[in-house]
């Protein structure tokens, strides 16, 4: 023990030996630690290393094609070339890097603009009227600033950065990226900044290229490929672009493709986890409904990446697999024919009702609207209202015509805002004493206050006598009403001011200064100014028509010359342009401007045509959406983005009468020989509803003649009797329930089963009498009517409606096939009942003048119209099938506010004639 103590003592006394031991221990620790890392855990590190620098990059698959039933190509993926840039080089220092990248971008842009290729990126700053301005606001602006200043979060921005002007930001970026701006155009500079900013944002995922321009020309491809070595990071890569043939005919049923939305992504990932947030997926129509079939399987590229995401080596690659092809039940020839017929008919209706000036409405002695004229000033205004003449361009005028028109507009705007300010600050005129024009400004000003929640309609008491007076436009001034709102505490200034006001006059002056500023920026208010400029002739129709050419909506032609040398009047120009399809009802947006037609094979529920008018160019919405075009069509009153065939709903009107007839016949209310006397009025109830023939009368009608004459009294009577059939007393619900059973079985009031979105139909549930003639609360789409008339045509077999025939793989092998599904068969209806209804429809068609001479086509059908209100025309519907002894097609047409269903019958007649005389013969040859 003592020995040990002594040796320890001597060890510590020899201080150098302590150091030797310490050093030996330290070096040993290192060796042992390295042995552990490299020998014991070496393999583990090797594996984890591979997984941490390995990355799988997916390559897009070619999306499946879409064909019509005969194999006509409707949608496909085209290969185009895009020029991309990625930050893949390594540089000695920042200056060298900036120089190389700036140069290759600038040279690439020069090649692109020389060959007329457009780069489509949008930077948060634009160059307008000689200066740089932000084109984004609020949080979008902050997000943009964050990216420009290279911060991870908005909160990392300093206040100075947050408030920097467009010029300051540009200056910062130009310095930061060492850009020589001498020879750069503003557009090129903005594009350069856009690309540099995104390259920086991508600095840890550099394998992702940034697109400079897609769909570039052959000349650009050649020029850039030649200079590949000198253009650092610039590559020309192929990419898929979705194309649609004759897109306007199919737009509503086809849909388009676009970058997946967050909600959509969640849904799609449930079915297929390979979706990511930059994928292009189907949006609407078949493209969305058959996404899983069309999408195909992405390819994969396994690569090693370095720390900044540059690819160092490709380890493996699997090719993508193209998506499946979808064949529609649609016959493209029939689809196009119906679309064109519908467009021609709408043109005809509009042209027939154009009137230079004068009275717009024509009422009969009973006060019912019987005709409605379209006054030329409305047409001229529609040009600007529907963005054919761009209001934005007009207000930033460049041409002489634009400047001249804008000058008058500005003058009127000033006059009217001054007037409004005078009205608010002076005595105030009673609303009812104002001119129509001034009423429109006052009312819009009021709407601005309520839309911006300055006047809180939710706090308002609608039974308050002053409010009632205001809402009905009586003798109260705007000024008085605002003051009334202030005293009642319905005013909320928190949106426009931080201070608290208690004094009425203070609050009032705050509101008036707000409103007089706000109206100047309000599109609706400003368009209203324009409306009256056109109406009172300050801006002429001729000028409006010439603006179409001036702004480039139409290409200059002979009509333009005639307009400019006064040999063609504006109204004649409109007529000629419509006849020549330079302007269509769908683009002009003058009611009637929309419609639907559905052609179905009644023997299996396959849709041969599903037309929604107007269509639009899905090519422009697909992929990188053309936002200007999207805004243009979404502004149009004709609502091209709505599927008028499956989603627009109207009351069925008299086309419903077959359902009532079947219910009456099958419930023993009538038999095929029962006669009901029509005196023009249905006198069982008061007020007595009228027949269409009133003040005349139909006299005795059987079910067949009643369908022929569309006698309301006959069917009122059935509806009335059905409602009484339980216990002899009138029970409307009982009646509508019976009717609903029949419409359900006929496939009218149930969903059709179509593959794309459709509105849920609604059977009428009030007033059994009105419901019996297709009024009441019923809401059906043209597609519902099609299924309904198909079921009637084949004697009670209701098939699910289908738009897709089959899905095949690339080699054409069928993967899925749609079989006809008989969802319901109405065996309980006797043959005599069917015959009575069929005969009625045959008689009806024979009765329509438009079908005279076409008896050999054996068309059965029924028109219908449903009233909307007293200021617009009725909706027109027509349902039909042919040939009636062996139905092979059923056609339904619906035109909202289409004046009279006779027009639909005319379209149908034209179609049947073409179908049986030309199409069928052509097809047989």
């Amino acid at each position: 023990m003592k020995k040990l103590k002594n040796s320890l003592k001597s060890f510590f006394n020899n201080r150098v030996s302590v150091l030797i031991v310490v050093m030996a221990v330290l070096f040993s620790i290192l060796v042992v630690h390295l042995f552990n890392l490299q020998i014991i855990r070496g393999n583990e590190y090797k594996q984890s290393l591979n997984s941490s620098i390995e990355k799988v990059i997916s390559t897009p698959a070619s999306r499946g094609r879409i064909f019509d039933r005969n194999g006509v190509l409707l949608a496909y993926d085209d290969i185009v070339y895009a020029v991309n840039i990625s930050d893949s080089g390594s540089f000695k220092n920042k200056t060298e890097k900036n120089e190389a990248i700036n140069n290759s971008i600038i040279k690439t842009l020069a090649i692109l603009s020389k060959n007329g290729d457009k780069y489509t990126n949008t930077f948060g700053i634009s160059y307008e009227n000689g200066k740089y301005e932000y084109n984004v606001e609020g949080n979008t602006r902050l997000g943009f600033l964050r990216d420009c200043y290279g911060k991870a979060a908005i909160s990392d921005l300093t206040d100075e950065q947050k408030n920097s002007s467009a010029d300051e930001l540009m200056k910062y970026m130009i310095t930061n990226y060492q850009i020589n701006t001498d020879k750069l155009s503003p557009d090129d500079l903005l594009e350069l900044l856009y690309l540099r900013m995104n390259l920086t944002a991508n600095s840890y995922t550099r394998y992702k290229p940034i697109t400079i321009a897609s769909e570039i020309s052959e000349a650009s491809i050649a020029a850039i490929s030649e200079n590949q070595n000198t253009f650092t990071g610039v590559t020309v890569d192929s990419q898929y672009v979705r194309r649609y043939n004759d897109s306007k005919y199919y737009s509503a049923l086809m849909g388009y493709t676009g970058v997946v939305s967050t909600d959509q992504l969640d849904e799609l990932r449930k079915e297929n986890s390979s979706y990511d947030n930059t994928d292009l997926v189907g949006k609407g129509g078949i493209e969305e409904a058959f996404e899983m079939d069309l999408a195909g399987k992405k390819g994969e590229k396994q690569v090693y990446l370095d720390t900044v995401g540059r690819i160092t080596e490709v380890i493996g690659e699997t090719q993508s697999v193209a998506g499946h092809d979808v064949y529609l039940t649609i016959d493209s020839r029939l689809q196009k024919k119906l679309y064109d017929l519908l467009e021609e008919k709408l043109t005809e209706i509009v042209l027939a009702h154009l009137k230079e000036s004068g009275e717009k409405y024509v009422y009969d002695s009973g006060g019912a609207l019987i005709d409605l004229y379209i006054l030329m000033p409305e047409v001229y205004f529609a040009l600007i209202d529907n963005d054919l003449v761009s209001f934005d361009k007009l207000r930033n005028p460049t041409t002489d015509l634009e400047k001249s028109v804008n000058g008058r507009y500005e003058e009127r705007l000033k006059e009217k805002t001054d007037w409004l300010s005078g009205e608010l600050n002076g005595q105030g005129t009673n609303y009812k004493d104002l001119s129509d024009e001034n009423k429109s400004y006052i009312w819009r000003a009021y709407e601005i206050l309520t839309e911006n929640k300055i006047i809180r309609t939710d706090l308002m008491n609608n039974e308050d006598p002053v409010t009632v007076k205001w809402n009905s436009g009586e003798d109260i001034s705007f000024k008085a009403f605002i003051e009334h709102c202030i005293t009642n505490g319905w005013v909320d200034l928190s949106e426009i001011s931080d201070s608290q006001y208690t004094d009425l006059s203070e609050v009032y002056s705050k509101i008036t200064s707000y409103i007089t500023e706000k109206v100047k920026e309000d599109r609706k208010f400003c368009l209203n100014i324009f409306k009256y400029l056109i109406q009172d002739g300050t801006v002429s129709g001729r000028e409006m028509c010439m603006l179409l050419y001036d702004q480039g909506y139409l290409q200059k032609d002979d009509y333009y010359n005639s307009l400019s040398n006064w040999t063609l009047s504006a109204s004649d120009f409109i007529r000629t342009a419509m006849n020549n399809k330079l302007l269509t009802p769908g683009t002009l947006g003058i009611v009637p401007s929309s419609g639907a037609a559905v052609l179905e094979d009644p023997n299996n529920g396959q849709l041969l045509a599903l037309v929604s008018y107007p269509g639009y160019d899905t090519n422009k919405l697909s992929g990188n959406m053309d936002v200007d075009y999207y805004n243009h069509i979404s502004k149009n009153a004709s609502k091209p983005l709505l599927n008028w065939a499956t989603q627009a709903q109207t009351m069925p009107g008299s086309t419903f009468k077959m359902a009532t007839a079947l219910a009456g016949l099958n419930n023993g209310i009538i038999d095929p020989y029962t006669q009901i006397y029509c005196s023009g009025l249905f006198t069982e109830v008061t007020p007595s509803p009228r027949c269409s023939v009133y003040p005349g009368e139909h006299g005795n009608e059987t079910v067949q003649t009643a369908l022929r004459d569309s006698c309301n009294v006959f069917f009122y009577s059935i509806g009335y009797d059905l409602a009484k059939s339980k216990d002899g007393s009138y029970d409307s619900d009982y009646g509508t329930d019976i009717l609903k059973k029949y419409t359900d079985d006929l496939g009218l009031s149930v969903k059709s089963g179509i593959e794309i979105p459709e509105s849920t139909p609604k059977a009428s549930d009030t007033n059994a009498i009105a419901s019996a003639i297709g009024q009441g609360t019923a809401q059906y789409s043209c597609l519902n009517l099609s299924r309904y008339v198909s079921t009637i045509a084949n004697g009670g077999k209701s098939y699910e409606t289908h738009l897709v025939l089959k899905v095949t793989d690339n080699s054409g092998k069928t993967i899925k096939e749609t079989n006809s599904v008989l969802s319901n068969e109405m065996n309980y209806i006797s043959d005599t009942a069917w015959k009575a209804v069929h005969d009625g429809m045959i008689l009806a068609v024979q009765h329509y003048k438009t079908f005279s001479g076409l008896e050999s086509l054996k068309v059965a059908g029924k028109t219908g119209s449903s009233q909307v209100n007293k200021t617009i025309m009725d909706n027109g519907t027509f349902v039909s099938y042919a040939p009636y002894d062996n139905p092979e097609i059923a056609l339904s047409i619906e035109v909202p506010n289409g004046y009279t269903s006779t027009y639909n019958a005319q379209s149908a007649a034209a179609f049947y004639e073409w179908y049986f005389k030309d199409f069928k013969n052509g097809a047989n040859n």
Partner: protein
Amino acid sequence: MFKKYNLRSYNYALVTLVVITSIFGLLIINSADSSYTVKQAGGIVMALLWMTFLSFVDYHFILKYYRVLYILLVLLLVGVKLFGVSAGGATRWLGSGAFRIQPSEMGKLMLILFLAQLLYTNKGKLNSWKFLVFVNAILAVPLLLIVSQPDLSQTILLFLILFVVLYTAGFPYKKLGKIMMVAVPVAVGLFIYIQNPNQKLLKPYQWRRVMAFINPENYDDNVYQQKYAVQAIGSGGLTGKGLGNDDPSSLLNSNYIAEAHTDFVFAALGEQLGFIGSVIAIGLLAAIVFVCIYIAIKTRDYAGRLIVIGIASYIGFQTFFNIGVVTQLLPNTGLALPFFSYGLSSLITLYTSMGIVLNISLQNGQVKDKDLFISGIVDIEEVRDDEKKTHRLRL
């Protein structure tokens, strides 16, 4: 300043070790980033010439100016404070471009020389509190200047080197024990205190590095450098991926290793040459350290021995710190690997040190300090306790 030397006692073994280690290091730098190869090779050649020249300069001649060295260092460090160049949140350099120097790097050698001579001229005073306080105070000035740059790792390294020099010179155990009784509780207290996020002692970046070491998951940004380095070294296995390989799965080739030519050069070495290469490198450095210690043992001169001990611990500790950091044994600090890392300040300091060591070795046997055993190296209290034992402790 020159003496007549017997060239047979020139320490060729140390020269050979230094040359081999430097060439080995150059190969690694070349594979990590070949753009530094020429510069570093030129630096090594120049430094070898400098070392050879210095090995013939009598170190006593240098030691004569020990006060000048001290004042020069303090002036340089104050210069850094006033006119220094900043990088990465710290101000450690003077001048710019190729003429950028890091005084704290040179400072290690300067302070070793200063302390050695100071202790030599004050032989026997180590047992007095007064002298101890004086020594500590005078050393604290440059140390505080370096820690405030901030450069905590250089400070800790310097502290350890100077402590070893003092210890070897015969710092009394009893006084050491008393100091420890105060210092240990304070250190533990400080360690607990700095873990508090609101602590005032460490700069935020230092705090994050320490915390990243204690708690890697929470401070991932600061530890990724070490994470990749460990992954690289681990994946090197027994034999490595080969020097200058083009394996795409190499972290070095994929630029994952930051500072692969300077502080993290050992990661490049470990990945490319595996365990065998790593052990050879550590072996070479250990050999240099032990040859130095051997020279110290052989040295009869009091100051010369303390200098060599100081230089041996400088190379030994810095090696341990650097490799410890690269292999995630220690928190991330910025210390170069002696003879391997690229960097002129470090190169010059190392070769100057080696030149002095070589001269000391060369003068072995020529210098005899008769007071060697009585004065400082041996604890005076111990001598009183056990006279006979003390004599056995002769070196």
